[in-house]
């Protein structure tokens, strides 16, 4: 089989990055699905910007929609024993105060040095900052999930971000539909490839020269 990973598989792979006991924010949109893929053998506490800690998976059944129980993207979430609710001041004290271990979000571009661009396109006069900038400045580890190329086939892993920056040098790990890439001081390290895809094929749609990990392997789920 040789095809790019679906969004669900990207989320499944991302969920495997999480460790027992971690406090994690998963971003709105695709990353929110990670809440459904947390391995049952570990306990991960999920936070949402709009003010809940330790929520369960997002709910696919919109008939059970409760406007008072949603994530930052407006999707219904489930309760878990030990869930707590708080206002956005406490929420962003957690986020900006360095209390979260990991944040996982989407991106337009990530640069060779781990710069992140994900809030505004060059065409937009006003962008949507939301809580993303707060999250990447505050969290200990930043994981980006994205397609490897944009809709026109251009690389999203770039030498220098051409989109307005969210923050400089903050990205630790990039999980795309083709590869898992770590940001290290020397540059970007290709660690895992999607089944059937070669490092050469990945390099061909990646702007900066990738460092090939000695432990390079196929992505496992």
């Amino acid at each position, binding site marked *: 089989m040789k095809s790019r990973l679906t969004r669900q598989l990207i989320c499944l792979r991302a969920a495997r990055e999480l460790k027992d006991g971690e406090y994690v924010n998963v971003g709105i*949109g695709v990353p929110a699905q990670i809440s459904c893929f947390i391995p049952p053998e570990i306990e991960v506490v999920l936070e*949402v*910007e*709009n*003010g*809940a800690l330790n929520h369960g998976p997002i709910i696919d059944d*919109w008939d059970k*929609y*409760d*406007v*008072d*129980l*949603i*994530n*930052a*993207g*407006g*999707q219904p*979430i489930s309760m878990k024993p030990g869930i707590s*609710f*708080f*206002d*956005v*001041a406490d*929420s*962003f004290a957690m*986020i*900006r105060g360095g209390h979260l271990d990991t944040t996982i979000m989407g991106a337009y571009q990530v640069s060779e040095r781990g710069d992140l661009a994900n809030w*505004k396109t060059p065409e*937009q*006069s*006003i*962008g*949507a*900052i*939301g*809580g*993303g*900038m*707060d999250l990447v*400045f*505050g969290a200990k580890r930043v994981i980006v999930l994205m397609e490897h190329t944009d809709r026109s086939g251009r690389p999203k892993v770039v030498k220098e971000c051409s989109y*307005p*920056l*969210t*923050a*400089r040098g903050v990205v630790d790990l990039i999980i795309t539909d083709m590869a898992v890439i770590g940001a290290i001081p020397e540059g970007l390290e290709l660690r895992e490839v999607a089944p059937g895809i070669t490092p050469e094929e990945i390099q061909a749609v990646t702007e900066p020269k990738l460092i090939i990990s000695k432990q390079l392997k196929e992505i496992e789920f």
Partner: protein
Amino acid sequence: MINKVIGSVREALADIPDGAVVAIGGFGWGGWPYNLVLELAKRKVRNLVGVGNSPRQFLPLLNVDGHCMLRKIISSYPIMKHGSRSDPLAEYIQKGELEVEGTTMGTLVERLRAGGAGIPAFYTPVGAGTEVEAGKEKRIFDSRECIMEYAIKLDYALIKAHKGDRLGNLVYRHTSRNYNPVMAMAAKITIAQVDNIVDVSELDPESIVTPGVFVHRVVAKEVETPVEWIEQDKQKIQEAERR
């Protein structure tokens, strides 16, 4: 005797003047004081400065007989996303009728908190080295570059809570707490739409989230948020998920 309970939504909003700085609570439709916003849209006030998580909080005020009731919006998510290409704000911005100030969510809430706590400004590293720093004072703390952000003080906060008593004590429901307690702190006049008005002493003192000192008027909701608003929202999210 203190009694902050007002008989109707109309009376509760009667004195909001032109040019007032008005925050509206809520994150999406959760914790959004639907009755208050709709009533405000009926008032013929103009040139309001709106503070809220996203422009959706101001939706009924954006087009009232072809006019935008706001002259400025301070918001963390100042575009109407979820795939809609026709941003209702764009038209007013282009015509120069509406100014939009974008701020990160954490900075927005901290600016409100500072406004409520008597802190005129503060420094944060969030936004340093990005477009967000433009025109802002900078200083280095712990070898980290920080930018200065000013407090936001509100004339009015329109908020939503689950239960409230005549002293203005409030409790919320689940994630609908969101911006409401912070906006209550930052306003000269806080008007709370509540699902239920309860007797004093019914709320557990250990569980009261917003103590009455921050709340000036409490009014019971008169109508439910229309199902079609929430329905519309569901559809947009589902569409976005499919893309």
